[in-house]
């Protein structure tokens, strides 16, 4: 058992979102501000109580867009004793660290996303996202100029890994299909979801092939959106007029392959495995105690690997496990017959929010009153967000 002094000592007390849309013609900052204003109002706090901000971005100190400094200025927040940017799973972990350590007491976490030219053809044609040129060459967004990391798009190594998964475990794409169909079934229940229409297993297999064997239905849907959370101490949360959602345990996960996608060392040596085992080392809870499951679905391959890393089934066993977990009357997964998965529709249907949608949805479910997609009596949520190689987080939230 590892140390976990922060257990249930930090809480989410405000949740706010922007609309989700394929092309809202808005900047990252505009979307982030809308989510932030909503989260602050939801928490019922004076904005001047905010003294720490985690903004959006891979670079921790970058300015502009929806970075922490831009947010502070635009929101008129007088003083912050902590600030940083983060993304994917790690952003929430950084923010909770800051509150727990005492560098701030009332933190605002904002994650804004806009479609980038590298993520959709429509965006590549859109002068509003004028960065298309950098993706046209052979450099690309992964590895920059290092020849050894010469992938043009992160979809390529993921597609190669997906092919290797099917090869190593002798499976077809049924598990990938069930995961994708599950999210679209929930998208139909989420008025903010980019994809409101359900998908059938047949539709999945008929969807456009992008990076063979990866199909368009395996990839989250690029969109413009933002999510924001207000995070504070458990003590301060008790004085607020909202039901707090507590951070029970969390872990990041790095491996010795570093950032070199191609050195992917097999199914046990990846960030999902490290972050999930780090989480279980820090919690007395076990899977039977978990009511909701949110595996990041930037690619279906991520969600399947996170499901296996969480321990719902063995490595390579998701296909059989999903078959026994499939509720064919609703076209959703019910793990162990009772745990729903990605109840907002995930990135595949709700939209590409870099996992911030999953933190927000989990917190909303644990508060309750989420309308027709509320999971009755949900008390705990397991969340895994990140990539095989970087910025993974495993988090347990509880009511």
């Amino acid at each position, binding site marked *: 058992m590892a140390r976990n002094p922060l257990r249930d000592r930090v809480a989410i007390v405000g949740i706010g979102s922007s609309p989700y849309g394929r092309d809202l013609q808005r900047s990252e900052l505009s979307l982030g501000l809308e989510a932030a204003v909503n989260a602050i109002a939801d928490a019922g706090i004076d904005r001047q109580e905010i003294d720490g901000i985690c903004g959006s971005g891979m670079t921790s100190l970058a300015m502009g867009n929806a970075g922490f400094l831009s947010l502070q200025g635009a929101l008129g927040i007088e003083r912050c004793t902590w600030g940083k940017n983060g993304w994917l799973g790690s952003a929430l972990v950084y923010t909770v660290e800051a509150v727990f350590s005492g560098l701030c007491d009332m933190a605002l976490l904002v994650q804004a996303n806009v479609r980038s030219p590298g993520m959709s053809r429509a965006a590549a044609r859109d002068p509003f996202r004028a960065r298309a040129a950098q993706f046209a060459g052979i450099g690309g967004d992964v590895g920059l100029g290092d020849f050894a990391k010469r*992938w043009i798009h992160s979809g390529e190594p993921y*597609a*190669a890994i997906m092919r*290797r998964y099917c090869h190593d475990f002798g499976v077809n794409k049924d598990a990938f299909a069930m995961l994708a169909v599950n999210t679209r079934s929930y998208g139909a229940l989420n008025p903010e979801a980019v994809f409101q229409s359900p998908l059938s297993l047949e539709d999945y297999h008929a969807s456009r092939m992008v990076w*063979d064997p990866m199909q368009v239905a395996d990839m989250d849907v690029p969109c413009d959106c933002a999510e924001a959370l207000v995070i504070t101490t458990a003590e301060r949360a008790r004085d607020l007029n909202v039901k707090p959602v507590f951070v029970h345990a969390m872990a990041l996960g790095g491996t010795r392959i570093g950032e070199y*996608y191609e050195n992917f060392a097999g199914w046990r040596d990846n960030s999902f495995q490290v972050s999930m085992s780090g989480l279980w080392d820090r919690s007395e809870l076990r899977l039977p105690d978990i009511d909701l499951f949110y595996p990041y679905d930037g690619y279906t391959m991520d969600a399947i690997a996170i499901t296996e890393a969480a321990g719902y089934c063995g490595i390579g066993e998701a296909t059989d496990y999903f078959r026994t977990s499939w509720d064919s009357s609703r076209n959703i997964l019910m793990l162990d017959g009772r745990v729903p998965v990605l109840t907002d529709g995930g990135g595949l249907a709700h939209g590409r929010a870099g996992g911030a949608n999953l933190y927000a949805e989990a917190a909303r479910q644990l508060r309750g009153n989420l309308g027709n997609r509320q999971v009755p009596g949900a008390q705990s949520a397991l969340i895994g967000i990140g990539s095989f190689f970087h910025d993974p987080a495993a988090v347990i939230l509880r009511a």
Partner: protein
Amino acid sequence: MTRSITPDFSTFEVPMDTWSEPFWQAGARGETHMPRCLACGTFRWPAGPFCPECHTQPVEWVAAGQARLYSFTILPVRGAEPDAPPAWRIPALVEFDAAPGVRLVSVLVDADPAHVAIGDRVEVVWQPAASASVPLFRREDAE
């Protein structure tokens, strides 16, 4: 049958440093060499100053041996004209029999996308780039 494309590397500046330069020098001779730790024998790729296994610095460069496909993906390449014939690019991960643990990101060229499989034996094709030649691969039985 349309075969997979050979990307244009003519303007690609190959980045290299003290530790990776021997790879490109061997490539100029048409050979694929990989760095092996002098102390513990672990292959180190990408090339770098310290062995991740034992933290020793010196390496010897040895022939990587038979290359095989670890995995790959196939993506359609859209031509400039709407009615251009279909074309594909095949990013590939290549392993080497004599350099265990090393994987090279590359492109499988001149391949029929319908007849490519994990484990296929492939051979290097050094393609001229701006400042060096880059290693691409083709299936050994491709005619």
